[in-house]
């Protein structure tokens, strides 16, 4: 309840230019790929590195003053790319992915800290884009926890069904899982349907 009012007060007094748009989701959903797409489209530069090995983003990354334009409308925000939220991290998974033992252990340790930071930052967000892999089962508790916590904090949410360029992608399952939210299918990697995503940001960051 206290957090709800803190959030409300912060939103009331915030400057329009201080809006923080967070990218949240489980690891390997494509948050950083989407962050790179947004930054490349509107700033001309990338934001972070991507990797097929989970937990590549292990620190909060912020890109300030992104201006998205659509027709006569303009939207200014700070983009916050967060480490993927997970309930388990096993360094042996990184070894299986080809990493050396020590590097894998270091990555696992940093990844656990990254998850904690992502959760801590939830309260700082003015709106959140939840980036989910459209080829995977959306009914995971991590997804439900993220979306449920944002709803409890009264933070506007847009759900992205990413990787629609892949054959296995199924946006309809995602829509069924989160019927109370707008779900947009995109490919952050190739830019499919990205204009629809940008237009939807204007609805989320009102």
């Amino acid at each position, binding site marked *: 309840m206290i*957090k709800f009012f803190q959030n409300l007060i912060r939103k009331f007094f915030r400057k329009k230019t201080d809006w923080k748009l967070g990218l949240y989701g489980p690891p390997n959903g494509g948050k950083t790929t989407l962050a790179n797409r947004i930054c490349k489209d509107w700033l001309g530069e990338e934001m972070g590195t991507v990797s097929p090995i989970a937990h590549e983003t292990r620190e909060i990354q912020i890109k300030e003053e992104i201006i998205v334009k659509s027709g006569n409308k303009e939207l200014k925000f700070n983009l916050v790319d967060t480490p993927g*939220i*997970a*309930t*388990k*991290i*096993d*360094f042996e998974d990184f070894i299986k992915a080809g990493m050396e033992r020590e590097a894998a252990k270091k990555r*696992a340790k940093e990844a*656990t*800290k990254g*998850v*904690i930071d992502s*959760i*801590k930052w*939830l309260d700082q967000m003015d709106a959140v884009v939840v980036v989910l892999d459209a080829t995977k*089962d959306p*009914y*995971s*508790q*991590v997804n*439900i*926890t993220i979306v*449920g*916590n944002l*709803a*409890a904090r009264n933070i506007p949410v847009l759900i992205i069904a990413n990787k629609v360029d892949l054959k296995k992608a199924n946006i309809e399952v995602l829509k069924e899982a989160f*019927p*109370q939210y707008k779900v947009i299918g995109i490919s952050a990697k190739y830019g499919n349907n990205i204009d629809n995503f940008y237009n939807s940001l204007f609805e989320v960051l009102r």
Partner: protein
Amino acid sequence: MLTIRFIPYYDIKHLSSSQRIRKILDIVKEEYIVLLEGKLKKEEETQLIKVTMEQISDQFKGIEIAQINPGDNETNDFFAKMREQFLNLMLGDRQGFTIIGPASIVKEIKQDPNKIELLTKDKKKR
């Protein structure tokens, strides 16, 4: 051997959020699968993930968790919604079940709104 420890709601009813989380994690770290009557609050779910991350080590790899609450079904039926709200009011966090297991034993918990499937790891691979 796979062992499930049932925690009835009255066991956690009077505990604070951090005490609930500690109780659950202590049992999970002993390699039991916890079947909790009721569900955790939204903030408790994130708190559980945070505390789990703080405790990850070479031995403890984290948890798998799922909640099932038949009352969460989306419906447009007015009377069904009324019934659901009444149950929420009466039972609150006591509705549904939460299942939490150690990641060293539970490979995956698949869930849809009405069903949970718990897949365990092959003992040799643990």
